């Protein structure tokens, strides 16, 4: 609807007329948006407005959801990632996804990070170890777990688990990270830790984050996209820089939403 005012080579995703439906139910209708490289694009909007569906399309995880049907175009470097011949697994290697609920595998901490590396063909053990160390350091978990890498990942606290999941996505050196309400299952202290982590990651990675928390969107987001639901189907109302959306929204709905006047 309202493309961001940027030149094309600074754009990571170029989404055009994206429509998502589950069976006969329309979940997202005709979304067009450009998402800039680096920085955090925060997606806000009420529950059920298709934010998570949108996120899942960006790394084509949508195809794993039974009954989910996607149409439209999403381009990365001028290539349509929704095309059937596009290799979705290599796409997901470049675009990590962090879930709302931390979901480390019920294995050891080390194994959680090792699994994607080994499966993607890294064979040298020293390289694996150094990558693990680097990524754990990057998410600030290294000092907390370096003595118990073989402990079960599920023995970590919620915030630690979520940071482990972020580390697990980072070991593959992705270009972008998708985050689906990454802090909503965490307590305030862990939330603060993860938020500052996101902030530091946003310097090097393109991050798209769904959030219900407007203050979080304002704090972290460089760009903000506002989704709304009309007639049961989600749609994009307005997108722009964080400053613009929060301070001078063009759309009346946006204004009322950021002021907390509609639930």
């Amino acid at each position, binding site marked *: 609807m309202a493309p961001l005012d940027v030149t094309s080579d600074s754009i990571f995703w170029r989404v055009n007329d994206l429509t998502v439906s589950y069976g006969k139910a329309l979940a997202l209708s005709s979304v067009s948006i450009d998402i800039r490289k680096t920085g955090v694009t925060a997606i806000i909007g009420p529950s059920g407005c298709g934010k998570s569906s949108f996120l899942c399309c960006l790394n084509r995880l949508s195809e794993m959801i039974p009954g989910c049907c996607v149409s439209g175009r999403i381009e990365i470097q001028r290539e349509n990632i929704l095309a059937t011949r596009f290799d979705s697994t*290599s796409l997901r*290697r*470049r675009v990590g996804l962090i879930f709302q609920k931390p979901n480390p595998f019920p294995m050891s901490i080390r194994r959680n990070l090792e699994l994607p590396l080994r499966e*993607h*063909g890294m064979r040298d053990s020293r390289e694996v170890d150094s990558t693990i160390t680097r990524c754990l350091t990057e998410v600030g978990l290294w000092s907390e777990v370096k003595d118990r890498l073989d402990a079960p990942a599920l023995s970590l606290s919620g915030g630690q688990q979520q940071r482990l999941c972020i580390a697990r996505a980072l070991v*593959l*050196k992705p270009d972008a990270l998708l985050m689906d309400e990454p802090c909503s299952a965490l307590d305030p202290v862990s939330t603060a830790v993860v938020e500052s982590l996101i902030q530091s990651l946003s310097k090097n990675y393109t991050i798209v984050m769904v959030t219900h928390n407007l203050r979080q969107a304002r704090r972290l987001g460089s760009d903000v996209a506002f989704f709304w639901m009309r007639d049961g189907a989600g749609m994009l109302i307005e997108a722009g820089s964080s400053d613009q959306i929060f301070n001078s929204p063009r759309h009346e709905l946006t204004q009322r939403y950021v002021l907390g006047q509609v639930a």
Partner: protein
Amino acid sequence: MYYPPRSKDWLAHKLLLFSSRSAAAVSASVLVLAIAVVTLESLPAIRDIGLWRMLSDESWHPSSDSFGLAPMLLGTVLVTVLAIVIAAPLAVVSAVFRQFYAPRALGGIYRRLIELLAGIPSVVFGLWGLTVLVPLISRIEPPGASLLAASLVLALMILPTIELISATALADVPHHHYLAARALGLSREQAVWKVVMPSAVSGICAGTILGVARAAGETMAVMMVAGNVVQFPDSVFAPVRTLSANIALEVAYAVDLHRASLFASGLIMIIMTLFAFCCAEAIAHSRKSYRVGRA
């Protein structure tokens, strides 16, 4: 860090898909194979004797060209019905007891006991029936090996199945139905039998039908205690032979037409159990729609 795409991965996927597809196909075709083999083996009997004679012949004397399965069909039905009549009420009341009456510890112990029994091999029931039950019944009315002995042994065997399924069906009825009934001032008995039971009855029926199928198909335990005389029994103390016992007793030495007619009775058993299975399915489905309809 982009790793090169790997063609091996595609191969692994194809391999996995192929092997799981073919495994599924093979597993599904076992039923077809079993029916085909049994039908093929029984063809001579169907052709030369015919199904009608198998039902109408007076008795079973393969060596004198008499192939009547009717006494054994009746035997199977009688043994099964009697076993269900004995087992089902005991099992259902036991399930009610466990769900609504038993103190926690006692209920737990009782459940363990029932689960233990569900795992006892049928030949053990047969052995016990033969060495304990049959001599006891023989003291009342010889020969002991009888319709009654077979039904009692079968009742013991299927009781755990019905009990466990009934208890699950009772536990599936939302507890607030029970509480609401008690809040209306109904007694525990009224709440259980008038409010909870109607919702659980289809589950209990499904369990009972499973029990029927198991009882009708059970072979060894029945063969050991039923006496195996081919006749229409005139009392519960009379010996009977069931279809399955007939097969077990004679298939080892039967040849030619005799063997084929035993396979034909096996075919009849398959048809009977598939019919029972379809009934159970239908009941289970009706229960589902009932639930959904009310939700």
